[in-house]
């Protein structure tokens, strides 16, 4: 049925015929009715039928059913809206950056960084992202350049982008330190992927989560530990002072008193070590570890440390093989700290043995301090965990080997900060060999 009852009521049939008569041709697109009463959408063309004499004898209408096309279009539109709503209601900021000039992955890291800062702009983002940076909507932020938020002067951001390059342009859970519209610092956790076209990077997609609040909590925790450690050290200092004064004034006349005073002093030393360890972990984790580099002879340091540790060790003899000059520039105290940790562990975890061997070696570019013990060793199953935070030797009676489980974690992280490394070999029941290497020049 070309015209439904309603069409006729609305005089659409007359209107169409009028148009045909007037212009010789008419187009329309509307709902038509099928025989069974269901509707279909069709677009049609009406033309005049002309007889031999040129007189209009009737009309012809060609209809094309476009119900399916309309339906598909509607579905696409709805899908598009759903997708947009999905993007905009996401708690993650989602974005697409385009490069005005495609980037060659063959360039050096520095050249790539320059290129990114020069040619990258925000082409598209969801509303969440705009709000993360303090903008009202995405329209306000689209078009922004990289440097407006990811400040180039901040080394953390350069490291972030370098890692993006190093990861083959697929970086997950990477942190960036950015500024929002009001120039306030915000921290984000990012996932991003570079898109290649003909071997060149043309754009990057990504999503990000605001972790500024978590950062603030961590910062407060670090500050709290810092303040507590400082406050704990002050009474410790005066306690230590009084103990040492008493020992000096009365200890010589009373050996028993002196023995007890020394025990208190040892406990103070343990407490100090615990405080320093928790401070070190805080500094390592927050990247605030400061190094005091100076030139020193590694072999002299090794002998000094061994003497120090030997003086409080009765159970083991520490043998040293460290001859000649081994000059290097590094943080002497921190190197000493690692060695003390390694020696303490070597002694602690070899209760049946009576010796520990320390050797220094000189290679082309590095020095090595090797600490060998003949103790319980580390089972294969635990070897990949020993440098983890809070790792403790898995022994039946953990009271036998007390501690926070931070010594090796700190040593490992310190070695990295000192531009060196810490590795080990161990056989269960035979013992362990730890090798600390330090570069000859930093």
């Amino acid at each position, binding site marked *: 049925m070309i015209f439904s009852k309603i069409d006729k009521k609305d005089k659409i049939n007359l209107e169409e015929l009028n148009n045909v008569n007037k212009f010789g041709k008419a187009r329309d697109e509307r709902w038509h009715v099928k025989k069974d009463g269901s509707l279909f959408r069709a677009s049609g063309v009406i033309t005049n039928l002309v007889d031999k004499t040129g007189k209009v004898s009737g009309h012809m209408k060609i209809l094309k059913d476009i119900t399916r096309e309309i339906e598909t279009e509607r579905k696409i539109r709805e899908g598009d809206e759903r997708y947009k709503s999905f993007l905009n209601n996401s708690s993650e900021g989602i974005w697409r950056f385009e490069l005005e000039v495609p980037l060659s992955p063959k360039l050096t890291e520095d050249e790539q960084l320059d290129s990114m800062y020069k040619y990258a702009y925000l082409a598209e983002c969801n509303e969440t992202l705009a709000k993360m940076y303090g903008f009202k909507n995405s329209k306000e932020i689209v078009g922004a350049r990289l440097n407006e938020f990811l400040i180039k002067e901040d080394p953390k951001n350069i490291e972030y982008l370098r890692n993006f390059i190093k990861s083959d342009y697929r970086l997950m859970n990477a942190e960036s330190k950015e500024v929002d519209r009001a120039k306030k610092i915000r921290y984000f956790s990012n996932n991003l992927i570079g898109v290649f076209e003909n071997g060149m990077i043309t754009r990057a997609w990504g999503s990000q989560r605001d972790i500024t609040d978590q950062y603030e909590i961590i910062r407060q925790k670090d500050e709290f530990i810092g303040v507590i450690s400082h406050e704990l*050290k*002050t009474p410790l*200092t005066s306690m*230590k002072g009084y103990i040492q004064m008493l020992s000096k004034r009365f200890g010589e006349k009373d050996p028993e008193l002196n023995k007890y005073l020394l025990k208190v002093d040892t406990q103070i030393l343990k407490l100090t070590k615990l405080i320093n360890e928790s401070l070190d972990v805080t500094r390592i984790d927050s990247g605030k570890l400061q190094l005091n580099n100076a030139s020193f002879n590694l072999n002299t340091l090794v002998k000094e440390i061994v003497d120090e540790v030997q003086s409080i060790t009765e159970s083991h003899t520490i043998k040293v093989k460290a001859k000649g000059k081994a000059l290097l520039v590094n943080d002497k105290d921190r190197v000493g700290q690692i060695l003390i940790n390694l020696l303490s562990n070597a002694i602690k975890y070899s209760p049946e043995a009576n010796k520990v061997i320390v050797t220094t070696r000189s290679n082309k570019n590095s020095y090595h301090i090797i600490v060998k013990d003949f103790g319980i060793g580390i089972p294969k199953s635990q070897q990949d965990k020993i440098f983890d935070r809070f790792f403790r030797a898995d022994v039946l009676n953990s009271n036998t080997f007390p501690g926070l489980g931070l010594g090796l974690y700190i040593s490992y992280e310190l070695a990295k900060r000192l531009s060196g490394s810490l590795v080990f070999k161990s056989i269960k029941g035979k013992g362990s060999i730890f090798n600390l290497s330090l570069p000859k020049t930093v």
Partner: protein
Amino acid sequence: MIKKKVLIADDNPEILEIVKIILEDEGFEVEVTLNGKDLLKLKEDFPDIILLDIRMSGIDGNTIAKFLKNQESSRNIPIIMISANRDTQATAAESGADDFLCKPFELEELISKVRKYTN
């Protein structure tokens, strides 16, 4: 023999008391102050050495060290900085301090450093 004079500035009275006892036992004349700002008023009767806590209420040790090291009359007085935080060693050196002690320090270390700079 004239006793060498040590001046200690720390806002913690317990630390002042024990360090005073220890150094007096070693034969030094010891003066103490809880207020770091007193050191900015030093005009005459200078000590032979100053022990300075980095973290004090009101004023920090680095500021005092910089002031004393920039003042002609007090430039040559050795300063040993004391801190609970060994990471402050570098800033202590920058402010002109001659040496550094980390809390809690060993008695022997304190005595030997004070001796070293007063001889």
